[in-house]
């Protein structure tokens, strides 16, 4: 039987070509219809430092970056030592024999990456040497990589041909080396091209393009890992009349300036990570109170405080929901895949306009850096919502009604005062009890407009269900499928609309004996929220700064569900 799935990790010093090899290999295979996913971790230091990128190639959609390695490509000694234990029993290690010397161990083979590259006359072709070797190991047709090379280096420059040839030669050399080594991992099944247009994109890029597809006008952000790439990408791409993108001096300036832009009629957004989100606490309360549409994308990293800037975690849920003092509860959309990052941004901007208030997107380091081929969104099918603006004459009182009402835009009729103090219909400050009751009711009633989100549910008759959120969706789905295949009676629930939860979902979940929530935090934040809603939920948590492994979840779910089944016997 042919392999349907291939996991390779490239590891070495930053700058050694680790990332380019990994992403090149992914792209080459994506081009012929394989499903690919890459996951990278970077050190905190700027230049050099240990880097690794994992590429997974499969004939079906890839849910996670893979638990075990089929191949480890070790660019140096440290990389070899650090990662060798994650290679599966049947796996192979390719190491750079210029950096590492090893007794034959029946599992590894070395080749001189750079020497071979230089022999092609192109010192920068080391990554092609590696790719050639990999191609041999799982028997990927050479032409796939050759075509990739040809496309990439056909740039209309005089030396194109020369570069292409040297790279083809490198591929051949690598392939030959692998063949010499005598190792083989069998044959990777032919791709099953999805037959639709695809794009290869990472989570933050998808989020940014999605926001633009939803009509983003203004983006103000302050650099912070892993959200900086949103700012950097939009600085180059959010262009044209009426658009404004800028680097603020702090997150306090980011949030308060988009409050101003939202008030002035624009679709405005900022992006940040935990520390910046905490600084936005007061500004978010203002947007809620004054009813200003805007979106904050919190690309979560390890917390609290400065925490773990380059690690992944799902620990900002509580603060996203209750960002500050007083009665406030923010709408939250948390994408679980690279593709969902695109749609989460669209829904978030739509929600902000629809309920006239702030919306939080909770993404994650893991998604922001992940490259994946996804179906190319069909823009013609996307529903973009505009703001219900006031068109009448002056004398209108924006806040007069008990529920949502058209919003006047500066420069147009209906001038009022947007006010962070409790206010009356026209926005003037007041302390009358009846006004505080009316306005609070008004603000919360608007959340009901956002219960139209969709959710996934499978085997809904089961009394125990699995319900991950965000980036833990992939590994959890993998584990659920595996357990279900083994005959376990487990329900599956998933939504990216965390608050408010889609209509009907809460009721369904309340009927379960147990809802198991895999999440990457210590407190079990999502299960706590579900318990608040009267759902009997428990978390499976992990705080390693890395995504769940499917096999770990299979075990943890088995235990939790098992325990529960026993307990529920006497009842």
């Amino acid at each position: 039987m042919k392999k349907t799935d291939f996991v390779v990790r490239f590891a070495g010093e930053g700058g050694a070509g680790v990332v380019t090899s990994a992403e090149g290999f992914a792209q080459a295979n994506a081009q012929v219809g394989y499903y690919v996913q890459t996951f990278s971790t970077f050190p905190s230091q700027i230049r050099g430092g240990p880097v690794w990128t994992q590429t997974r190639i499969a004939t079906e959609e890839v849910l996670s970056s893979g638990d075990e390695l089929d191949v480890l490509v070790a660019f140096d000694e440290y990389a070899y030592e650090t990662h060798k234990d994650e290679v599966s029993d049947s796996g192979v290690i390719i190491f750079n024999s210029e950096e590492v010397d090893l007794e034959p161990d029946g599992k590894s083979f070395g080749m001189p990456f750079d020497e071979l590259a230089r022999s092609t006359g192109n010192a920068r072709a080391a990554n092609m040497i590696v790719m050639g070797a990999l191609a041999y190991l799982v028997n990927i047709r050479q032409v796939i990589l050759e075509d990739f090379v040809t496309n990439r280096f056909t740039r209309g420059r005089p030396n194109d041909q020369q570069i292409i040839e040297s790279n083809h030669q490198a591929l051949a050399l690598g392939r030959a080396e692998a063949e010499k080594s005598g190792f083989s991992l069998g044959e990777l099944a032919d791709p099953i091209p999805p037959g639709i247009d695809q794009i290869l994109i990472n989570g933050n890029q998808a989020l940014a393009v999605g926001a633009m597809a939803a009509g983003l006008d203004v983006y103000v952000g302050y650099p912070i890992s892993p959200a900086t790439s949103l700012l950097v990408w939009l600085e180059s791409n959010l262009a044209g009349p009426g658009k404004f993108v800028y680097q603020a001096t702090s997150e306090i300036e980011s949030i308060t300036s988009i409050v101003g832009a939202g008030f002035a009629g624009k679709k405005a957004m900022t992006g940040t990570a935990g520390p910046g989100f905490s600084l936005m606490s007061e500004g978010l309360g203002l947007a809620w109170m004054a009813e200003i549409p805007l979106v904050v994308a919190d690309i979560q990293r390890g917390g609290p405080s400065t925490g773990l800037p380059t690690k992944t975690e799902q620990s900002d849920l509580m603060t996203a929901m209750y960002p500050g003092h007083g009665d406030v509860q923010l709408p939250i959309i948390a994408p679980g895949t690279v593709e969902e990052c695109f749609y989460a941004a669209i829904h978030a901007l739509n929600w902000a306009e629809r309920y006239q208030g702030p919306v939080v997107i909770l993404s994650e380091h893991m998604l922001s850096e992940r490259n994946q081929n996804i179906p190319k969104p069909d823009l013609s099918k996307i529903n973009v919502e505009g703001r219900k603006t006031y068109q009448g004459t002056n004398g209108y009182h924006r806040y007069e009604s008990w529920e949502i009402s058209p919003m006047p835009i500066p420069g147009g009729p209906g001038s009022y005062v947007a006010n962070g103090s409790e206010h009356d219909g026209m926005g003037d400050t007041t302390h009358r009890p009846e006004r505080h009751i009316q306005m609070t009711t008004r603000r919360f009633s608007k959340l009901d407009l956002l219960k139209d989100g969709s959710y996934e549910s499978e085997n809904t008759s089961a009394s125990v269900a699995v319900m991950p959120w965000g980036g833990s969706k992939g590994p959890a789905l993998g584990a659920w499928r595996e357990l279900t295949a083994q005959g376990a009676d487990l329900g599956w629930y998933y939504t990216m609309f965390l608050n408010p939860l889609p209509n009907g979902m809460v009721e369904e979940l309340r009927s379960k004996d147990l809802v198991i929530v895999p999440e990457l935090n210590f407190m079990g934040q999502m299960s706590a929220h579900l318990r608040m809603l009267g759902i009997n939920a428990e978390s499976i948590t992990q705080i390693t700064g890395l995504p769940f492994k499917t096999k770990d979840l299979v075990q943890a779910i088995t235990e939790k569900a098992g325990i529960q089944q026993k307990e529920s016997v006497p009842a």
Partner: protein
Amino acid sequence: MTSKNPEYDFKWCPGCGDFGVRRALEGALQLRVSETEAPMENNVVVAGIGCSGNMVHMLESDEQPYGFHGIHGRSLPIAMGVKMARPDLNVVVVAGDGDFLGIGFEHIGPQAARNLNVTAVVMDNGVYGLTKGQSSPTTELGVVTSSTPFGKAEEKLNPFQMYLSMGVSYIASTMSSQVRPMSAMMSEAMEHPGFAIVHVQSPCTEYNNTYDLLRGNSRKGIPGIAYDIPDDYDETDPEAAFQIASAPGVPLGVVYKDTDRLTFDQRIDEISEKAPARPVSQLLDSFTI
């Protein structure tokens, strides 16, 4: 808007300097409406939190500007959001010394560096009025307030030196009793291409009554520290401006003016001309495998 609103119950104390500032601002806004023939709704008043900020609810014209009564110290970034979203609107900030020069201090420098085209009216009474009389950045060293029972241990901040070294491109100084000249300054500031600050000495009759100190009181033999800037003064000369800023007393008039700098929105326009505005479909294509 309170002239017609019983629900709004805040009132300034009798004699509060902010009354004069309000009259001046009402005048400048009216004048702008009649001169530009753009409706009053093209004006946005962004207010800080304080007695002063309450002005946004107290403008008594029938036609009302838009208002934003935000959070303490953040009027400038909110104003930036409004202005950069709609450069065609006239945006005016009204705030107190504590709001603008204390908790909100961090926002002045960046807007000066950008030359954001808004006008800030700062009502400086050297005290926190709304919270009932604590010291502010412009309270003199050693002064006793409710929060400094044994005297303030901190030197007074010099607003004009700050504004100058930050590069604010229009700086005027006045006091609340000078309604007509103040109103003219406000009009000029709104006209000014760039970041303009009208810094008003606006006495707090309740906690820091400086009327005599400013205007003098012959009966009490108080000289008065406010003085008119001489006519031959060159308001475009930074050197001269630094001297006035460093000298004692409260100058009345335009301290500094630089009309040659581009405004933030102009710079952003220049940039967007360089920036390729590609449709989203093209951006998606750029990720094609």
